[in-house]
């Protein structure tokens, strides 16, 4: 039982505290790990998006994407998600200068915007099912739901994560948490960037050459 190191004086304790954060590169462990995870996640979404592209135009029966995808609705939801990235940046800036009030405000709004995006996605999925696009219907359905569903799951985890930080800020000390928020921000921005790719490749490119 080494809680028995009771005789430790405070000075000593602080020295050791700094020692614990030793890093060969000077970048914190959490940040290195998040960048590595995002590299891995690139392959994750890369596989999903390539599958969609490879199966594009291969559905044997309708409804086809050009009949159901709605650019106006998804433009609105994409805008909301992009704005949440701005709010995320504001949260990180606020926690860096230890402005807890602003941090709470921005992180709360970030998760609300994320939740609004998820609302749009539920609306979109419901619409599509009503129009006959299901996972079982055709290749478009299988690939579309698997890909956007995985992205939605990432957003949902992000919303949950950021909202937990909002709650935590009321009863926990945010003093040494700037790195954690920054790392959560990296994740959130990445999820947004993936959506930009999905929106471009799956939604916009579909309508190239199609007259309104």
């Amino acid at each position: 039982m080494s809680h028995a190191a009771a005789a430790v004086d405070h000075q000593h304790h602080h020295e050791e505290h700094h020692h614990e954060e030793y890093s060969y590169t000077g970048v914190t462990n959490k940040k290195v790990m998040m960048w590595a995870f995002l590299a891995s996640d690139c392959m994750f979404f890369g596989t999903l998006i390539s599958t969609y592209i490879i199966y594009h135009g291969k559905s044997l029966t309708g409804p086809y994407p050009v009949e159901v995808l709605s650019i106006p609705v998804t433009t609105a939801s994409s805008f909301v998600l992009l704005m949440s990235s701005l709010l995320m940046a504001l949260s990180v800036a606020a926690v860096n200068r230890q402005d807890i009030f602003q941090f709470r405000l921005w992180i709360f709004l970030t998760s609300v915007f994320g939740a609004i995006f998820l609302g749009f996605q539920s609306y979109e999925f419901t619409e599509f099912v009503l129009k006959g696009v299901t996972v079982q219907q055709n290749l478009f359905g299988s690939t579309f739901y698997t890909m956007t569903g995985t992205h939605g799951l990432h957003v949902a985890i992000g919303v949950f994560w950021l909202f937990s930080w909002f709650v935590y800020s009321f009863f926990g000390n945010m003093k040494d948490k700037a790195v954690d928020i920054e790392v959560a921000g990296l994740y959130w921005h990445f999820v947004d960037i993936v959506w930009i790719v999905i929106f471009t490749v799956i939604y916009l490119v579909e309508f190239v050459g199609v007259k309104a």
Partner: protein
Amino acid sequence: MSTSTEEISTGGHVHSHPEAPEQGMLGPRPSAKRGIWSWLTTIDHKRIGIMYGLAALFFLVLGGLEALLIRLQLAVPNNALLVGDMFNQMFTMHGTTMIFLAVMPLIAAFFNFVVPLQIGARDVAFPRLNAFSLWVFIAGAVLINVSWFAGGAPNGAWVGYPPITGPQYNPGHNSDFWVMGLMLLGVSSVAASLNFFTTIVNMRAPGLSLMRMPVFVWMTIVTNILILLAFPPITIALAQLMMDRMFGANFFNVSKGGMPIMWQHWFWVFGHPEVYILILPGMGIVSEILPTFSRKPLFGYPLIVFSGAFIGFMGFAVWSHHMFTTGMGVIAVLAFSVTTSIIAVPTGVKIFNWIGTMWGGNLRMTTPMLYALSFISMFTVGGFSGIMHSAAAADMQQHDTYFIVAHFHYVLIGGAISALFGGIAYWFPKITGRLMDEKLGKWAFWIFFVGFNMTFFPMHILGLNGMPRRIYTYHADMGWNFWNHFCTAGAFVLAVGFLLFFINMFNSLKHGEIAGDDPWDGRTLEWSISSPPPEYNFAVIPQVTHLDDFWHKKQSGKASASWDGKLIHMPLPSYYPLICGVGMFVFGMGMIFLKDNMMVFLPIAVGGILLLTFAIFGWALEGPGGEMIDPTKESGAYN
């Protein structure tokens, strides 16, 4: 995946006062230092490494018994021991077990035990995430094997090609177990890789620049980058197969336009890097053993390092050589034929460097050295047959025959297992404090070596004579009788070799000669500390100035640095990684049976997720914690 990101949010450097035990959501944190609970809640990389190793050896024995059953069935023509589906289950589980439950975790055991010691660190970057990887691995391994008692084991081969594994042709739960089990193992591997990548990047001792890292550490980081980039494609492919099987999607359903060939691509985009995931750590181990027992520095260290990195890079550019017979078209076949030939070059460079290391050296033929030599020679044989496959025209003849079976067993047993067993013999004194018996060790080695070649060399001949793999019997007049009989005899000799090795391990654990800190006159940092190492590894973090730093310090008489009087900060054990593992196991079981009865199994799956969520929150809120250790008052060992 989500779990590994959630780890980021664990923020809390909860620095409670050392007098009061820290509180988690379940009350006080675990405090057992001995006994079963200390192992279940440990976050010590050495204990986690030992558990990985023991689990891996258990599954190696299990996979070995499966192999013996396969060989018994094939010993004589028209045998009726394991027929049809039972045989399919047996070879599927043999392959899956050996690759994912034996060799990969045995490699993980070495990563865990050796890497922090070789880089002069007190633990990995995320000790609790490390325990999480272990328990999720155990969860996945148990989950797959539960299938034996729940309607039948996976039966679609370790490559799991649909439509054989699709819902139309495989309606039972066999493949569901395989899909969910591999997904859990993927989560475990990716979490471990994030951890070891960060550890090697960030936790190196001062002065341990990249080109001063031991080759094993280099191969570890290359392997972990491969895992990070290769596991997502297979995870998605498994998710697609799961969508097909559980929710009626059409990814591989030909009648709706799906293309089963896409599974093959995603599988091998993962599967070929996986081959290097299995072999690169072995190359690292051999690069540690050879200089030690040749009493010479590694010949061409930078070349070996760059060759390893180049192999890792090229590993992503050769996957379609597994698919030469699928009709990809001339251009694709040519391109992959060329890249496959290219990847032989860095491998050859390494082999020549190892020979150069021994050239003119003062060779000591210890057990680890014998296994290392076995690695070089047998892996070279496997490499040669591999080069034969890069010629697409020849590969058309060899595809799916026993020639392929011979090839990859030369790479995986002659290569990976030789190196890993050499590694066990080499680091056994560091892990246990006792040396393995040399006499029995050499007997075990030679029986292993002879048995291995008896079993697998004739398979080249069988393959070239046209015997296909994955068939459960053959006619007596095919001309395959003698060599099949011979292979089966060899398999039992090989099994005796393994058995003797295990007996040696077990005996030496109790009766082995006391090793001391540095029994081999080693070159790297792990030999500078006691055997077994204390909980905190290094009382003083070493200052590194050279490649083979410990060797240099011994030569210049500066080997022993004394404790500087600072207390050592170590993180505390935790219940939550284990609870995460249990949650994921429950979730997996719920998903597998979801289709049978939604009302029962949906709540089970959701329950698993809730348990996981609870554990993640508990994990985040308790923080890594910390206790201050006085090295003069600690006994050190973990057993």
